[in-house]
């Protein structure tokens, strides 16, 4: 076996036999996916619930709009009480041709929506009953917009965050542990080059990243979460590799500076967590203040994130990879240079 292969195998085994590492690499990001998926997932079906009394063509037409959700109650008084209590934004009663609507004063936007919807349905029914052609016609069609359902931006975001964490942690901890236990020194005493040691760790990092991605996307595509992959999703693969390269370089830098596993863990957290929030991992950045968006432009996770969203779910092509690739590679060069300044084979 070549030194490169056996070092890679040794690192792979060391990693996969460590339960804590497996948890932080695979299970914790998945937990985040599940938690955020459930929190944000329910908000996308936000029909307005209203209390209704009676039945008729108006209610049928109203139900077909898909905007309101009916809760049938026995009497209008009960329904009005529910509005007063703030349980529902509006109550509607249909007795033959008489339609009564009561809405809560507190939530004007919701009440306005309900009022507008109901009056348009009522007008429509009246117009149909009169038998006259409409004076004005409205042609409306649905347009696919770029704002995504929760799972569509959560999956690429949390995946990017998960691979950033594991790439930085994994490589930093290997370096610190091997230096502390003098394994690096022992390797230094064998005819193995620095490049072999570094590149075998990089291989392990990339391998872990790919496994994470497969697991993640597989879970997100289950019906519970319902992730829809775009046609050119496989463009994510080169992006994953370049992304793990740049986080690997941060990991080597952290592993060169930190003297203990505890220090490496602390430094990694200080880097990864703020970066994750600033990069739009857990929620989209479009509502964030401009200066924050500018700051996030210098973060590698931001660009990995953007690239992943573009190719995985927005259906963009190779052109979407250009900026992320350029930024990530430039970042890698700078950080790798810094790491090479700080790197040492042994604790002095």
């Amino acid at each position, binding site marked *: 076996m070549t*030194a490169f292969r*056996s070092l890679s195998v*040794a690192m792979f085994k060391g990693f996969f*036999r*460590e339960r804590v590492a497996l948890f932080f690499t695979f299970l914790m990001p998945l937990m985040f996916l599940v938690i955020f998926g459930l929190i944000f997932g329910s908000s996308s079906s936000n029909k307005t619930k209203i209390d209704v009394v009676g039945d008729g063509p108006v209610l049928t037409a109203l139900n077909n709009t898909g905007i309101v959700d009916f809760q049938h109650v026995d009497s209008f008084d009960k329904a009005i009480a529910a509005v007063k209590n703030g349980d529902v934004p509006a109550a509607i009663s249909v007795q033959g041709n008489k339609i009564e609507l009561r809405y809560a004063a507190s939530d004007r936007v919701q009440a306005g929506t309900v009022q507008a919807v109901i009056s348009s349905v009522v007008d429509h029914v009246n117009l149909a009953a009169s038998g006259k052609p409409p004076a004005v016609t409205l042609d409306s069609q649905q347009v696919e917009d770029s704002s995504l359902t929760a799972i569509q931006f959560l999956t690429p975001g949390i995946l990017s965050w998960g691979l950033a964490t594991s790439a930085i942690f994994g490589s930093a901890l290997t370096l610190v542990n091997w230096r502390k236990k*003098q394994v690096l020194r*022992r390797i*230094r005493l064998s005819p193995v080059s620095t490049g072999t040691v570094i590149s075998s760790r990089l291989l392990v990092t990339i391998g872990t990243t790919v496994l994470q991605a497969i697991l993640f996307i597989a879970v997100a595509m289950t019906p519970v979460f319902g992730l829809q992959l775009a046609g050119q999703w496989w463009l994510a693969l080169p992006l994953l590799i370049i992304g793990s390269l740049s986080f690997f370089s941060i990991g080597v830098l952290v592993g060169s500076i930190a003297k203990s596993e505890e220090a490496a863990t602390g430094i990694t957290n200080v880097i990864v967590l703020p970066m994750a929030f600033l990069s739009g991992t857990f929620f989209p950045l479009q509502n964030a203040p401009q200066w924050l968006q500018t700051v996030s432009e210098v973060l590698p996770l931001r660009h990995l994130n953007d690239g992943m969203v573009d190719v995985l779910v927005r259906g963009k092509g190779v052109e979407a990879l250009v900026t992320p690739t350029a930024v990530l590679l430039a970042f890698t060069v700078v950080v790798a240079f810094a790491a090479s300044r700080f790197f040492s084979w042994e604790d002095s």
Partner: protein
Amino acid sequence: MSKGSTIVADGLRKRYGDLWAVDGVSFTVGEGEFFGILGPNGAGKTTTLEIIEGLRKPDEGSVRLFGENPWPRNPKLLPRIGVQLQASSFFEKLTAREQLETFASLYGVSTATAVDMLELVGLSDKANTRENKLSGGQRQRLSIACALAHDPDIVFLDEPTAALDPQARRNLWDVLRAIKARGKTIVYTTHYLDEAEILCDRTAIMDKGKILAMDAPATLVRGLDAPTHVLIERGVLALEEARAIAGVEEAGDDGVSLRLSTRKPAMVLSTLAERGALEGLQVRGATLEDVFLELTGREYRA
């Protein structure tokens, strides 16, 4: 390079801050020799070893290892030397066999030799045990096996027997003897004087960065002119009688035995035999501890 010399160290000095950790160390080690560097903690043994291995640059002096300079890192030398570091440096979570195979492959050597080394150190039955599940003695033996995995010509062992219980130490001595029997040159450090006396062909006694004496242990002890201690059972002979025996320099009663110090043990022993006073006889020659005491003027404390 003198013929047959594996190591030629000349005037090595290394300073840490204000302290000369190694202060003018010179010695040579011949091919196939078992060479011990002996001394208390902080004597400069490990630093000396690290300079020879090429891990540190000496501030002054020179080293030749197989005729080559080990500093800076000399890839030509590396396959010929095997090093066991003071800490047992293993790959995390790997089994004994996996450790050896990994180390062997760093040198591009077939893993067959590596597995063979497990047998040499008596760990064949632990081949599939993970490094962290081994006992202290087993870890030391594995770490020596790892140093030998690529079949080097010379092995450096830094305190291989430190912190082992007596039984584990003895097991390890057998391992070291077996390595020597394979024709390897061994350079090792220890702070156990008795051990060096038993194992080494030659010993350098170090203290405070300097080599105080260097020779075969027996020669060092013989050159000492220290008295031999003859012990007999108490009550076989009166203390006054014992003191009067020709050749006895000093006699004492420690409550268990009579202790006679002499530089003429043959004379004293024959007198005791004549008087039929050899009950519970023990004869103790001088040891390296006496040599250390003589050289430094203080008791040996490891």
